[in-house]
């Protein structure tokens, strides 16, 4: 047993090094000095207090989306629609703030309403994907993807149409909200302790739910073998639906935090790939909730660090994506290789 852990670690380290090797070759191929490139990613992420804060800001939504997809993965669902769920969260949060901004409801309450609206919006969009699957036989991958594109179009429609800023609508989003409606942040930054706190709380909730509750056990039973779970008396489609709703609510909260703490307005592409990145993190940690916090931090650091790469080396910041994708791909392949080798031994 103990030996297995070491072999396991060995394979993961091997996969990590191989991913690094391949990305290094890609950098050389693209004509960038690899060491300098990695160096500027590191300094881009940790080189200054400002950069570190940027990492923490993008850590928060990633924690929420990863926590969300851990639930849907446990139920055996590929919730690719999470990008759209986050977007709907942002739209609904904006809607909530707009509804109450000119009333005399206290700002703190409006902010809370906005967060709740966001969760409801994300859950609604997830419920749509869930209903399409449960009642329409539409695979959640395609239902979710389609809804992602619809959500983006809806944002653009709102930003250029009914919610356009005074004058002409633009890609830079709606008119920023009044400062009293901003989620309180550390002075001079867009980092909200509330956002970080709620995100970590979400991870803890998911960890407990999947590890220590009867509910989590049944959810995993649905994910492993829906038929047997049904035979054992688990109401299967209700459980799948609940997984969608919970994941959607987390994603929606992530969207709402982007609106209330980071951008203070609705803008196109507000989900910014955090949903897909959450799926990648979940796969990388082999769906073990305990690893979400550090690995999501690492991925957020890569994202922020690669912006520096773009500035200094004129390389596209999609490099972070390349590194993250290859890492997950090789970890998956490494898992397969290990299982195969151990079986033979």
């Amino acid at each position, binding site marked *: 047993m103990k030996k297995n852990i070491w072999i396991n670690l060995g394979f993961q380290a091997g996969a990590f090094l191989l991913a690094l090797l391949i990305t290094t070759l890609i950098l050389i191929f693209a004509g960038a000095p690899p060491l300098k490139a990695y160096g500027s990613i590191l300094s881009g992420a940790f080189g200054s207090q400002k950069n570190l804060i940027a990492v923490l800001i993008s850590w928060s939504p990633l924690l929420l989306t990863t926590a969300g997809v851990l639930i849907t993965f446990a139920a055996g669902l*590929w919730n690719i629609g999470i990008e759209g769920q986050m977007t709907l969260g942002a739209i609904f949060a904006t809607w909530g703030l707009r509804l109450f901004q000119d009333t005399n409801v206290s700002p703190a309450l409006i902010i809370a309403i906005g967060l709740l609206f966001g969760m409801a919006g994300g859950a609604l969009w997830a419920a749509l994907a869930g209903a399409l699957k449960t009642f329409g036989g539409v695979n959640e991958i395609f239902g979710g993807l389609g809804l992602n594109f619809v959500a983006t179009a809806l944002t653009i429609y709102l930003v*250029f149409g009914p919610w356009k800023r005074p004058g002409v609508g633009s890609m830079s989003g709606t008119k920023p909200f009044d400062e009293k409606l901003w989620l309180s942040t550390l002075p001079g930054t867009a980092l909200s302790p509330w956002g970080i706190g709620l995100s970590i709380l979400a991870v803890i909730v998911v960890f407990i739910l999947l590890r220590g509750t009867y509910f989590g056990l049944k959810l995993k039973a649905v994910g492993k073998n829906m038929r047997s779970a049904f035979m054992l008396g688990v109401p299967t489609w209700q459980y799948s639906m609940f997984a969608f709703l919970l994941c959607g609510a987390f994603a929606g909260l992530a969207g709402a935090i982007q609106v209330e703490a980071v951008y203070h307005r609705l803008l196109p592409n507000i989900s910014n790939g955090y949903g897909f990145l959450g799926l990648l993190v979940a796969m990388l940690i082999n769906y073990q909730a305990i690893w979400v916090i550090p690995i999501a931090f690492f991925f957020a650091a890569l994202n922020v660090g690669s912006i520096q790469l773009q500035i200094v080396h004129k390389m*596209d910041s999609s490099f972070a994506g390349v590194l993250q994708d290859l890492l997950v*791909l090789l970890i998956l*392949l490494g898992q397969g*290789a290990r299982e195969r080798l151990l079986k033979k031994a």
Partner: protein
Amino acid sequence: MDNVILIGLAGVLAAAAPVLFAVVGETITERAGVINLSLNGTILLSAMSGFAAAYKTQSLLVGFLVGMLVGAIVAFVVAFGSIALRQSQVAIGFVLALTARDLAYFLGVPYMNVPGPTLPGLPLPLLKDIPVLGTLFFRQNAITYLSFLLILAAWIWLFRTRPGLMLQGVGERPAAAFVRGANVNRLRYLYTIIGGAIAGLAGPAYTLSIKPGWMGTQTGLDGVGWIALAITIFGGWNPWRGALGAYLFALLQWLGLVLQPNLPNIPSQVLQVAPFPLMILTLLLVNVGDAEWVQRWLASMPDKTRRLAVKALRAMRASPPAALGTTFERD
């Protein structure tokens, strides 16, 4: 006026070619029992690298070949990960869809907005002068003709030849195919790679013909691969029906462009996503017949209506190859 519409429709046939390559390639792959979910990334990476290769060598042929090579390599990773290493096809395919996309954007920077070669038109002598049909079918370019031929070739191979029968067997009942002497996993490798190579034509068909050039994220190809995957389902894993889906998709996009000036209140980005709700709707129509509540609802209908409804639902229904997405072990 007629002429304008005809030329527009001929444009639709050309615009559908890349989607058609992706759909037919995926149909072949899935018929063998493997889902290649990476299609969206395959198209973007083959689009960028095909364009870059054609730009550097000034040879269109090299561009298309490089696109096919890229498609084959990505497909090989899907096959290797799922067959040899028994990982989830969906997981590997999804990660590859992102990997290939990000690689395309990262490596494509030097080729952004540079003028490259484009495929010239190739009107076929004599045939081009046939009224109506000539304009529609015979004043296209080489890659569009290839897309026409591919539908026919794929259909013949799948349904009219012995190896094609074996291919279907590998996807439907691998154990039975194995008993009949098929090397199931080798055939799956083969058809995944061939399907990937065909899908790899889709990228260069855009960047060297339909939408010339590479513009990074502004190229506007992100999403096409997912649509192609949905059309494969809509097509019921049959090249003809898949082609119909690709043409309908291209037709809708064209209508969107034509109607845009009449709908000034709707931003163009909104019309561009119209295919996606339609994709959901078609998948719903294809699948909903099997849902429990539909069955119950049908049972409560008067006989005559029910027969009609069942017929309609059955005409649209499509069942995947029985062993799609599963692994095969010989024992």
